[in-house]
């Protein structure tokens, strides 16, 4: 029996891979550990998109290169996948969807799946994906009753006929898939029902709600848009002001206005849009107006690969904005991080009056996985603003660097905020001494911020000789690597608050033989930061910048190479 099954669907944009993903993930999750990730082109129809769903009896978190079961949805669906086929692969599709010679090359098996006929049998052309769902449900021996209920829930708002047709289609697929159950059987998980299935986007969205977010203004940009869509869907239930801005500059300035007036705002974008917000980030720094910015990274420069993944904007996030001022950057790795770090982002933005960037990437945002059902901390919802008194000074020179923040209309004071250098009251100043006072007041917050540092997560043996460092979405593949690794002397440190970094982080590296940084970029931006800020010598850099996430097999190979 294998421990995990990798099922891939390959089709075109517009063939509804997302529906398949949704149905399988939801129905399999109560019994198995599941993880899914998509590879999607920047187009609405055509091209080639793939969906990978992994099912296992134990926790899984990563993209797997090798395919166990491949469903071809059209006659050009095979082309980009040849590398991922082995003698263990079973390929399913219409006869004319493959070149049998190519498959033979890999000693893979091909099994004809007459989808056209099955669809005809089902009597409705739009249920093709439900047949595939049934097929997989048959293989995984899912409870058909539960699956049919899921279909009812999903389609009942359309029409009764559609529900019936889908159930019917499911049954056809279930029957066809059944015979494959034996060869693909995997153990069920004993704790899967503890988890909720969601993707990174929803995790960040829940985190924003948990952080008290009541304002979002953003300009659409993949992969950042989904957070805007998520909060738009939540508008009615959670009282959020949602606005699509005319551009990213408007978006960040609106977020600053919202915080100034006492709201808790966020904007969401990707690298290109973030580049347009840089002046606004500097404004947040100077005026000490909090803000939260979600940046979903994708490969650059410029438009790059809009629907693929990369981690190359850490340096930009650290240095965004002219002039010098403190900031906080979080990079969630697992879904729990998505929720908790985003929640904390709002709290810390408010507490330290600085811009907080939540730095994710396409792979984190759009992969589905399982998350513990969290109970959130209420403390993070409390506003840090004060009721002002007459003569209130917005920039009072508090020794900590934090001047109590009032908001207009709440109290008897006036709240005067300036992007020029200003005095304690918020008036423009050109006095050099005042400049130094105010600049140092702002800069003092950099070390203060570390009091709330979010500790990294150490995975693996305590007495490690080699330490892998990662941040953001490489969490999944590195965790899976460590948990399945035979090297008992390797551990993995996942840094969640990537900036600023505290001295105490050095402890993890003391006496270590080698430090391996793993990053989805071409230079090793985290490795550079560790060197610069903490004098940690990174001995090896494993970098990938093709636009794909690391696969588990690649990670095993590369780490072996590096440590040999």
């Amino acid at each position: 029996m294998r421990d995990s099954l990798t099922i891939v669907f390959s089709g075109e944009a517009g063939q509804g891979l997302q529906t398949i993903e949704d149905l399988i993930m939801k129905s399999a999750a109560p019994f198995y550990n599941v993880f899914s990730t998509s590879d999607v082109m920047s187009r609405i129809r055509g091209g080639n998109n793939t969906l990978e769903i992994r099912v296992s009896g134990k926790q899984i978190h990563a993209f797997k290169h090798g395919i166990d079961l491949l469903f071809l949805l059209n006659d050009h669906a095979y082309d980009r996948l040849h590398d991922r086929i082995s003698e263990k692969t079973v390929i399913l599709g219409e006869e004319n969807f493959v070149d049998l010679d190519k498959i033979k090359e890999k000693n893979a098996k091909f099994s004809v799946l007459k989808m056209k006929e099955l669809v005809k049998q089902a009597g409705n052309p739009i249920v093709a994906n439900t047949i595939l769902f049934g097929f997989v449900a048959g293989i995984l021996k899912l409870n058909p009753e539960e699956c049919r209920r899921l279909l009812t829930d999903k389609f009942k708002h359309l029409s009764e006929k559609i529900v019936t047709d889908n159930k019917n289609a499911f049954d056809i697929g279930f029957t066809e898939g059944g015979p494959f159950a034996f060869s693909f059987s995997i153990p069920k998980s004993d704790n899967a029902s503890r988890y909720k299935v969601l993707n990174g986007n929803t995790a960040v969205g829940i985190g924003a709600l948990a952080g008290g977010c009541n304002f979002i203004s953003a300009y659409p940009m993949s992969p950042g848009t989904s957070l805007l869509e998520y909060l738009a869907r939540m508008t009615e239930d959670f009282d959020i002001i949602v606005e699509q801005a005319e551009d990213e500059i408007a978006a960040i300035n609106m977020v600053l206005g919202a915080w100034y007036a006492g709201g808790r705002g966020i904007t969401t974008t990707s690298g290109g849009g973030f580049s347009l917000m840089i002046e606004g980030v500097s404004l947040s720094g100077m005026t000490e107006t909090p803000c939260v910015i979600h940046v979903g990274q994708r490969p650059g420069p410029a438009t790059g690969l809009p629907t693929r993944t990369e981690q190359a904007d850490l340096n930009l996030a650290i240095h965004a904005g002219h002039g010098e001022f403190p900031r906080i950057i979080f990079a969630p790795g697992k879904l729990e991080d998505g929720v908790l770090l985003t929640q904390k982002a709002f709290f810390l933005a408010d507490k330290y009056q600085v811009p907080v960037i939540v730095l994710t990437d396409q792979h984190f945002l759009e992969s589905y996985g399982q998350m513990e059902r969290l109970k959130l901390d209420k403390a993070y919802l409390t506003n840090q603003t004060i009721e002002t008194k007459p003569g209130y000074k917005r920039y009072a020179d508090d020794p900590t660097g934090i001047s109590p923040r009032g908001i207009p209309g709440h109290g008897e004071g006036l709240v005067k905020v300036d992007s020029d250098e200003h005095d304690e009251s918020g008036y423009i100043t050109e006095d050099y001494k005042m400049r130094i006072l105010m600049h140092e007041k702002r800069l003092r917050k950099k070390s203060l911020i570390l009091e709330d540092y979010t500790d990294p997560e150490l995975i693996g043996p305590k007495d490690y000789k080699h330490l892998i460092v990662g941040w953001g979405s490489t969490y999944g593949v590195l965790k899976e690597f460590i948990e399945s690794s035979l090297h008992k002397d390797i551990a993995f440190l996942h840094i969640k608050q990537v900036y600023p970094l505290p001295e105490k982080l050095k402890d993890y590296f003391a006496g270590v033989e080698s430090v391996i940084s793993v990053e989805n970029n071409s230079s090793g931006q985290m490795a550079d930061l560790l060197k610069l800020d903490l004098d940690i010598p990174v001995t090896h850099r494993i970098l990938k910048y093709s636009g794909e996430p690391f696969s588990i097999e690649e990670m095993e190979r590369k780490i072996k190479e590096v440590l040999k």
Partner: protein
Amino acid sequence: MKNFEFENPIDIAWCPGCGNFSIREILISALQELELDPTKVVFSSGIGQAAKMPQYINVNYFNGLHGRGIPVAVSIKAVNPELTVIAEGGDGDMYGEGGNHFIHNVRRNPDITHIVHNNMVYGLTKGQASPTSRKDFVTPIQINGVVNEPFNPLAVALILGATFVARSFSDEKDLTKELIKQAILHKGYSLVDIFHPCVSFNKINTFAWYKKNTYTLDESYDSSNLQNAMEKAMDTEKFALGILYKGKEKPAFHENQAAYKKEKTPMVDRVRALEKVNRLME
């Protein structure tokens, strides 16, 4: 005077003789006469000589980036509709760098008053052409004079559906005060474009020039008629002063938000129930 005026004299960075001084005086009287409470009034401004205005009024302000006064104003009003929100800046600030916010916020109809000091020049940066500079205006950049078609903010605002569009001249104190008061009282986006001489950098559009090239709309003018307004706005031979257009009020930006459809409490005063968020993870 007190309230919106300071107790003690303040240092004002404008040039002696600049039209901005009149505008300041007028603005303060307008706010006083409306009996507004300074703690409930917020100015949002960009950068420029005009944009320094909030510094010189005893009021809340967010003096942000060049060109970005409007987006900040819009969200302030959205999270706390109980505040009176005024976006103020110069012609370069609001129509040049901030042009995209101008056009799209007219469409959005936020309940803010938009005051633009239009001196047809970039004052603070020392005399370059602004979008409203007239043709042939010579500057250190436009050495042979401006050739671009001047920007017509009033006509653009009208076309994009603004329901309150007015123009004044800093020397017309009573008129200007009245326009500002009405603009503040008007629900939705209201534009008050105020001509004023820049004595340091605009030697063409001087006090006398404005006197000569403007006239005040009289009682007979029907400002509820969009057609009339467009005609007046398009006439750049002689500039009409007054309310060019005051149309029917439409729902304002924040009123269109789902969050305000059910209840009116400002967003800042609402409390999020964390249990509801926890439930999302069940």
